[in-house]
């Protein structure tokens, strides 16, 4: 057989043992390393730091708690206690005996109680048996051994026996219990005072004891280290993963929806704890705990979690894997250094950077025009609506609103082709703050001549397809100076800006209007805007003919020399031919295209090319144009743009911007055509989104936030912020309010901006009134009629409430909206005052006492004059209007506390703290007095109406002429 071979060293067991020893030790080391590597988690590091923080805080608390204890008082109490103990020691002899008896009694009571318990249960049993026997018939008793009678009697005897026993023991127990009570009270009285004293001492040191206990629990020690060590931390570690499981919020993993599990609080341990507002991240308390995360907030942390608002991977436990996103390049650099951060791979939805955090609100807050506490997002959405992005890019949720650009179907009646050419080529050359974007002259333009030909073609199409619109010739001469004054006085500045007056920019800036339209057109427009553009939001100011002519004359003097000086370029015929042929070639062969081209004259070429270009550029997205009534959106649908996979965004050769959606959006808005840089593309393949030149950096940031919010995400209905009926009514009305820029003249809601037109007058009394609480204040029918046909309430104001020409439905919506905003309940209880004549007399007395006529007129034709010492702020509405205009219950609220209803009003408060200044009228009862006064004021409206005073307002215009 064999011998162990010594020749081959590989089989030398001695050497092998050495190797074995060495590699076993390495194996052990590797296992230890494996355990350590698994045990050392990033989040434990943070929890350790947090523990240190808490420890420091607890130390602080202990110091302050100890500091609160008044040493002298404490010593005194302790001394008192010692004295008391000495006194008690004297009485102790008695006490000892009593205590002994007490414990004996307690035992006895327990004994008897136990016996009683047993006896009771037997009693219950026997009673049950007896009752069953007594009430069952023979059939059921067959099962019983004895006869029914026998059984019944036996049981009855047993029952009474047990009842006796129980009652005897019960009374014994009661006696003992009574004795015990008395004894206890005696013993207690001894110690009562002592107990009170002790309680005082305990109360003093309570805080200190509690904080000391907390401190001890946090102190680093062997036990804490052991319970958190590797392997042994399965029992009761202090460092553990914290998670919040939300059953009704989901993570969408494409094939499955998984309830969210947010483990953010593992590192962000104090996120919902007050007191860590100044701690370093990640321990800082969340801002505004009353709104977010607090248990009484609308977003409590147990129900909301973190990722539904912040995004990211809630189940991950490292800084990198959770998807933290820096909000600036600077922060990215910081994080790269500190956390070795880099963009998260393989995860489509990292956290939202803090500058886009408002993108999450709309998930739940739907159906509102503006989301509270989300101003950036609101701004973004507003820009999208008002700039008309939705015209080219379909967005679900922004549908059915009027196109944002003016109607071009009758363009010939308004401007001339030269103007249109220059405008289309570069809108900001005429009006720098226009919403119209720039289509030409951008970074991927082919050549100047190419673009000129295109613009000329579009212009040609518009004019060739324009309807006939003739404005009447203007016969009278207008006074530009008067016109200028009128513009500032009548209320144009509520929407428009001109020259130096720029308090509102809702409508066009009129500084260069003279370079655009003709006098005749302006007069026609001013008298009745709906004549030229039926869907315009511009109202009629009920101008007289002369006023209109004056204003129009002034506007025609406002020209833009630079714009006027722009020459109209020559269109290169070859370039035009090339373009037309290109277009023809798309639906014809070469030969056919050539033939058709030859058959066209110049105008036909331009018109044909114009039509093709309008189709290409999508002008109909914002403007009504003949021939494009049913055209569809030409741009990418943006309804779920925030969920679009990054690889589907075409960054082209722009490698220097980060590969994120936000960077794409920002670049697209900064210069849409930039993504064509470096690419070889035919004219039709090129990008054709126009450049919105008026967007500021803030605007762009807001738009990025809005676009990021367009996500596909499922939130169950019970978690959404559902609107109640009042809120729904208000939202419907708010759309109309925003579309017509009521805020240009009025403040319409508390906390909202508005009424900028007041900045153009010095006297605040000349500003349009606030309409906050309008629904509560005025009667519905009156408000409805007023909105349809405004009549003067405050004749001294030179600003005129415009006639907007609301449809019945719109006026209805507005009235309901104001009601909803003020939460006016729908009730059929008749609030109209029907006062008794005596009450009217009292009311009149009070009325005269308060000297209401100093500010209020009281007859239909009466008015208070503006004279020396009387400013507009001193004037108030005519009280004859009150009956049909004001809600009668509101009048009482107004009298109660005018300043609460309308802050900073000049109306005096006659009933401070509901105290009456007239103790002898109606028994000094303030409420009765107010009611009487109200009744009187309302009765003023019963006077026969004089014809309405002659005012500059003309009657509402006739319906639109076709």
């Amino acid at each position, binding site marked *: *057989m064999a011998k162990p071979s010594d020749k081959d060293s590989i089989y*030398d067991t001695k050497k092998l043992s050495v190797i074995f020893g060495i590699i076993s*030790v390495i194996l052990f080391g590797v296992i230890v390393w494996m355990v350590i590597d698994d045990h050392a988690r990033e989040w434990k590091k943070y929890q350790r730091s947090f523990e240190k923080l808490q420890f420091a805080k607890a130390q602080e608390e202990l110091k302050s708690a100890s500091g609160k204890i008044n040493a002298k008082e404490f010593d005194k109490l302790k001394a008192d206690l010692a004295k008391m103990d000495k006194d008690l020691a004297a009485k102790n002899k008695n006490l000892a005996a009593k205590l002994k008896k007490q414990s004996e009694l307690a035992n006895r009571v327990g004994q008897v109680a136990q016996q009683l318990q047993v006896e009771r249960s037997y009693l219950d049993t026997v009673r049950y048996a007896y009752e069953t026997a007594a009430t069952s018939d023979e059939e059921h008793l067959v099962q019983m051994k004895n006869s029914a009678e026998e059984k019944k009697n036996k049981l009855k005897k047993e029952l009474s026996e047990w009842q006796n026993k129980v009652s005897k023991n019960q009374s014994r127990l009661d006696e003992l219990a009574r004795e015990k009570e008395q004894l206890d009270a005696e013993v207690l009285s001894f110690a009562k005072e002592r107990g009170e004293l002790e309680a005082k001492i305990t109360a003093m040191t309570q805080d200190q004891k509690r904080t000391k206990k907390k401190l001890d629990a946090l102190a680093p020690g062997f036990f804490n280290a052991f319970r958190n060590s590797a*392997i042994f931390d399965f029992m009761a570690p202090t460092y553990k993963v914290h998670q919040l499981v939300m059953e009704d919020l989901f993570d969408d993993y494409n094939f499955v929806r998984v309830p969210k599990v947010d483990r953010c609080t593992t590192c962000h341990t104090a996120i919902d704890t007050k007191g860590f507002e100044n701690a370093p991240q990640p321990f800082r308390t969340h801002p505004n705990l009353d709104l977010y995360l607090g*248990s009484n907030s609308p977003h409590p942390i147990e129900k909301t979690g973190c990722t539904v608002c912040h995004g990211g991977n809630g189940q991950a436990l490292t800084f990198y894997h959770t998807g933290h996103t820096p909000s600036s390049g600077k922060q990215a650099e910081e994080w790269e250094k500190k956390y070795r951060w880099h963009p998260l791979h393989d995860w489509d939805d990292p956290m939202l950077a803090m500058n886009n955090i408002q993108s999450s609100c709309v998930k739940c807050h739907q159906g509102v025009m503006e989301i509270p506490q989300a101003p950036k997002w609101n701004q973004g959405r507003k820009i999208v609506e008002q700039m008309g992005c939705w015209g080219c890019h379909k967005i679900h949720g922004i549908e059915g609103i009027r196109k944002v650009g003016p109607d071009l179907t009758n363009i010939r009646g308004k401007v001339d082709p030269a103007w249109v050419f220059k405008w289309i080529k570069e809108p900001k050359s005429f009006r720098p703050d226009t919403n119209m974007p720039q289509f030409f002259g951008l970074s991927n333009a082919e050549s100047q001549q190419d673009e000129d030909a295109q613009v000329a073609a579009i212009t040609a199409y518009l004019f060739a397809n324009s309807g006939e619109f003739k404005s009447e010739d203007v016969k009278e001469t207008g006074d530009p100076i008067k016109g200028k004054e009128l513009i500032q006085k009548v209320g144009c500045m509520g929407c428009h800006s001109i020259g130096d007056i720029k308090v509102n920019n809702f409508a066009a800036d009129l500084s260069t209007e003279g370079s655009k339209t003709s006098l005749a057109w302006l007069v026609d427009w001013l008298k009745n805007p709906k004549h030229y553009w039926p869907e315009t939001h511009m109202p009629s100011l009920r101008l007289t003919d002369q006023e209109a002519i004056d204003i129009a004359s002034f506007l025609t003097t406002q020209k833009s020399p630079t714009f006027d000086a722009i020459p109209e370029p020559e269109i290169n015929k070859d370039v035009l031919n090339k373009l037309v042929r290109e277009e023809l070639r798309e639906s014809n062969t070469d030969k056919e295209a050539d033939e058709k081209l030859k058959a066209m004259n110049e105008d036909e070429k331009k018109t044909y090319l114009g039509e093709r270009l309008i189709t290409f550029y999508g002008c109909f997205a914002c403007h009504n144009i003949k021939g494009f009534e049913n055209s569809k959106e030409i741009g990418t649908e943006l309804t779920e743009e925030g969920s679009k996979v990054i690889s589907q965004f075409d960054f082209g050769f722009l490698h220097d911007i980060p590969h994120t959606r936000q960077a794409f959006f920002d670049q697209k808005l900064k210069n849409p055509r930039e993504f064509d840089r470096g690419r070889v593309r035919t004219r039709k393949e090129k990008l054709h989104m126009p450049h919105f030149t008026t967007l500021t950096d803030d605007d762009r940031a807001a738009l990025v936030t809005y676009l990021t919010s367009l996500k596909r995400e499922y939130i169950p209905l019970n978690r959404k912020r559902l609107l109640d009926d009042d809120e729904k009514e208000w939202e419907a009305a708010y759309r109309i309010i925003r579309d017509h820029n009521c805020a240009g003249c009025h403040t319409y809601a508390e906390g909202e901006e508005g009424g900028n037109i007041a900045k153009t007058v010095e006297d605040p009394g000349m500003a349009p009134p606030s309409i906050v609480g309008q629904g509560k204040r005025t009667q519905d029918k009156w408000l409805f009629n007023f909105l349809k046909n405004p009549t003067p309430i405050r004749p001294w104001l030179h600003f005129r409430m415009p006639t907007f020409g609301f449809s019945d439905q719109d006026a209805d919506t507005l009235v309901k909206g104001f009601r909803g905003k003020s939460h006016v309940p729908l009730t059929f209880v008749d609030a109209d005052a029907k006062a008794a004549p005596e009450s009217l007399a009292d009311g009149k007395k009070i009325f005269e006492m308060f000297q209401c006529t100093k500010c209020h007129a009281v007859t239909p034709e009466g008015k208070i004059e503006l004279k020396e010492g009387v400013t507009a702020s001193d004037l108030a509405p005519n009280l004859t209007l009150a009956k049909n205009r004001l809600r009668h219950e509101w009048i009482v609220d107004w009298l109660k506390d005018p300043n609460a209803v309308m802050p900073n009003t000049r109306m005096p408060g006659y009933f401070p703290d509901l105290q009456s200044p007239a103790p002898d009228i109606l028994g000094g009862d303030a409420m009765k007095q107010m009611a009487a006064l109200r009744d009187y004021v309302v009765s003023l409206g019963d006077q026969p109406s004089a014809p309405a005073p002659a005012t500059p307002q003309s009657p509402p215009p006739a319906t639109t002429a076709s």
Partner: protein
Amino acid sequence: MSEEQKPPTTPTPPPPAPAPTSLPVQPTMTRRKFLSWFALGWIAFSAAMAGFLTSIVRFLFPNVLFEPPMTFKAGLPSEYQVGKVDERFKIKYGVWIVRSADGIFALSTVCTHLGCTPNWLDAEKKFKCPCHGSGFRMSGINFEGPAPRPLERFKIELADDGQVLIDKSKSFHQEKGEWSDPLSILKV
């Protein structure tokens, strides 16, 4: 050695092995070495294997579970009336919140007999377990039926925002005298 010299088959029996451990002739245990490589190897190897096994067993104790949280807030103390048993958290957290003259405490809804859920009979002022008839007073003390000990109380204290905070991971047994622990009852 060339092939011809060696016999082709019938090998000679090997010399007897010097030691039963089948080690070669050289001695391994010398006075100088405390631990031979061989012994060291086996010790380290066993330690490594023990480490492996312990790591595997550690997997039986997950670090996170998707169970409902053990601590929860139960509203303000003012929401609980003296002498009443509140059942609003019975289903969700398995707790009755009882307020007596002494204070507020949280009773576990697990019957101490075999684990069923008793019902609170307000008319008779007792908890009655439907499984075997165990009865408990409002305080949780058992007084009838097979239950051997009173219902357990959970740790209860005030949270920072003034709400009652109940921690089900710590329970107090009356029969062990633990009901005198101040954490078992909230004095308000």
